[in-house]
């Protein structure tokens, strides 16, 4: 276990950034999102939840796959190479780290997504425990311990100090480069902090949500429930929930006309959108009720059915905080629990 004074964190960021790209929570125009560290960046590790999750770093909202240019009657195709340089993610929370395990199931299964795989390989994750969990947090329901997140290095902010514990080989390699900035520390402060965090988690209103009505069996049991018809109505069909979600992984591949060619890129898609999975024959979900149902069934029934029971929600609560109509996965889970379907 090591520690560093909070006031010296800028030196730590600079030391990491001198060698690798460093992604961390940065405040810009009033909002905190993950961004690349620069000398002028306003780093903000105190905000519990970035608006967008850490998903962007491994699976960006939009990325170019290749470019096609028309040149003298021929087409020139230039592909984008997967990432080849190491980078560090700092300050990512336990829920977002757990979300990567969900994304791994999708992108690291055959056929492996080479862009995602390269980023996973090149990235070193320095996670941060949550000193002050929020009302909308329910990561405990999905087996996340926000007092002891996963990661190559795990850190805790305790008072004016950041405690630093390498957990993997990657984490040890990063720590070695920073020894001049870190000092040895004992574990007492962190243990006390963890006990305090876990005591708060016990008091969170959603910490003990029951998932009894969900899992693989729900794929059949809940599909035709009349509850969906009740729940979806205020849904605006916007993509906020999907785009702030750390586990939503659906994407579209599109062409952008550049004048003398195209840029083929992929971007996050949303099952809330009317053209989601549009095919030549049309769309297989034609109503917003069906689209709304799809999102929650995917997270709580279909994904576990296909992935040994793993849910594709990590309880970060961003959708709870951000839905313009105050709909969310907690209300869905509770509605089914209440109805006793």
């Amino acid at each position, binding site marked *: 276990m090591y520690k560093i004074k909070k006031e010296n964190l800028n030196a730590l960021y600079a030391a990491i950034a001198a060698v690798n790209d460093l992604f961390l929570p940065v405040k810009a125009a009033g909002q905190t*999102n993950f961004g690349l560290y620069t000398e002028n960046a306003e780093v903000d590790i105190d905000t519990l939840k970035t608006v967008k999750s850490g998903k962007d770093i491994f699976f960006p909202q939009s990325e170019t796959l290749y470019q096609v240019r028309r040149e003298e009657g021929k087409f020139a195709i230039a592909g984008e190479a997967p990432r080849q340089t190491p980078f560090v993610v700092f300050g990512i929370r336990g829920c977002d780290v757990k979300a990567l395990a969900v994304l791994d199931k999708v992108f690291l299964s055959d056929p492996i997504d080479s862009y995602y795989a390269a980023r996973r390989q090149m990235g070193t994750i320095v996670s941060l425990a949550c000193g002050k969990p929020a009302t909308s947090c329910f990561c405990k329901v999905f087996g996340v311990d926000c007092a002891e997140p996963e990661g190559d290095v795990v850190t805790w902010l305790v008072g004016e100090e950041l405690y630093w514990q390498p957990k993997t080989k990657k984490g040890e390699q990063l720590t070695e480069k920073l020894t001049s900035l870190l000092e040895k520390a004992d574990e007492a402060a962190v243990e006390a902090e963890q006990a305090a965090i876990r005591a708060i988690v016990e008091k969170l209103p959603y910490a003990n949500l029951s998932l009894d009505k969900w899992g693989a069996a729900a794929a059949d049991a809940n599909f035709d429930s009349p509850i969906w018809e009740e729940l979806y109505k205020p849904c605006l069909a916007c993509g*906020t929930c999907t785009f*702030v979600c750390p586990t939503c992984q659906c994407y579209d591949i599109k062409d952008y006309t550049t004048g003398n060619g195209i840029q083929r890129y992929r971007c996050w898609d949303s099952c809330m959108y009317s*053209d989601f999975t549009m095919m030549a024959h049309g769309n297989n979900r034609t109503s917003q009720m069906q689209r709304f149902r799809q999102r929650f069934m995917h997270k709580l029934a279909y994904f576990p059915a296909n992935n040994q029971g793993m849910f594709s929600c990590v309880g970060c609560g961003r959708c709870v905080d951000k839905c*313009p109509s105050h709909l969310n996965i907690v209300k869905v889970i509770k509605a089914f629990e209440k109805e006793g379907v």
Partner: protein
Amino acid sequence: MQELIKKAKALLESGEVARVLGWKKGEYEYDPEPAFFETAESLKDFVYNGFCGANLSKYMIEAGKKEGKTLVFLKPCDSYSYNQLLREHRVDREKAYIVGVGCKGKLAVSKIPFEGILNISGSEYPDAAETLTVETLYGTQTIAYKDAMLERCHVCKGKEHVVYDELIGESADTVDADRFAEVERIEAMSPEEKFAFFQSELSKCIRCNACRNVCPACSCRKCVFDSTAFDSEQKANTTSFEEKMFHIIRAFHVAGRCTDCGECSRVCPQGIPLHLFNRKFIKDINALYGEYQAGSDLESKAPLTNFTTEDAEPGVGRG
């Protein structure tokens, strides 16, 4: 609130309306959701408090396609949106029973800067407190009601409803800011400063389309940004060009029709002050064609869809 429930029950039971469009209790005081109620019994979940900011007028497009009348509760500012939809023949007045409901200013939990908010009291209607009591995981805090109000309420259009069948409840004066002050501040910037301002705000956009989908003026059956027939169909801000185009095209499209209801800014997950685009258009329309408030009536000719030889022609030196 009880008066609203009583009215809704009476109209449902008499059969005058087939459903009621209002707000339903959430998990807490601060997360009510828009909801349809079809039985008197279901009204037990009805709520109307300071957190019922959602403008229900756009839901009336869908409600109008159903059998029978819908009772809808509209706040004064929502009634402008409804009127504008009426002008655009998007809603059917015959199928609406409009109860104009009083408003003491609407709140947003995002404006309350405390961590671990468990519950908030003091937002009750009609007896809202001057100070909200905020119970959090980390102790009890207080905040002035007006400090938790949505931006739009600080520049409220007024307490009058512009369309209704009957009125229930009083409204409060909430204006304590100049509606165009922020627009003027930006107008005074150099082109470089303006560009930097909008770039920093709009680069946060995640293209979730919440602003468009909540907007009562965005009622096209198929949005150009959802059409695969155009290169404009972009889900993400792949280039800075595209990210600016979406918001600017949208602002142009709603110019002269936007009532300044402020829903776009309320719903933006990234806190982009989208209303500033619309308000710039409103300010310019006022300056060039005379004071105009979209949705204020059904008869007046809208400045951007009406030509007179006296019109200002900005760009050719007559503006």
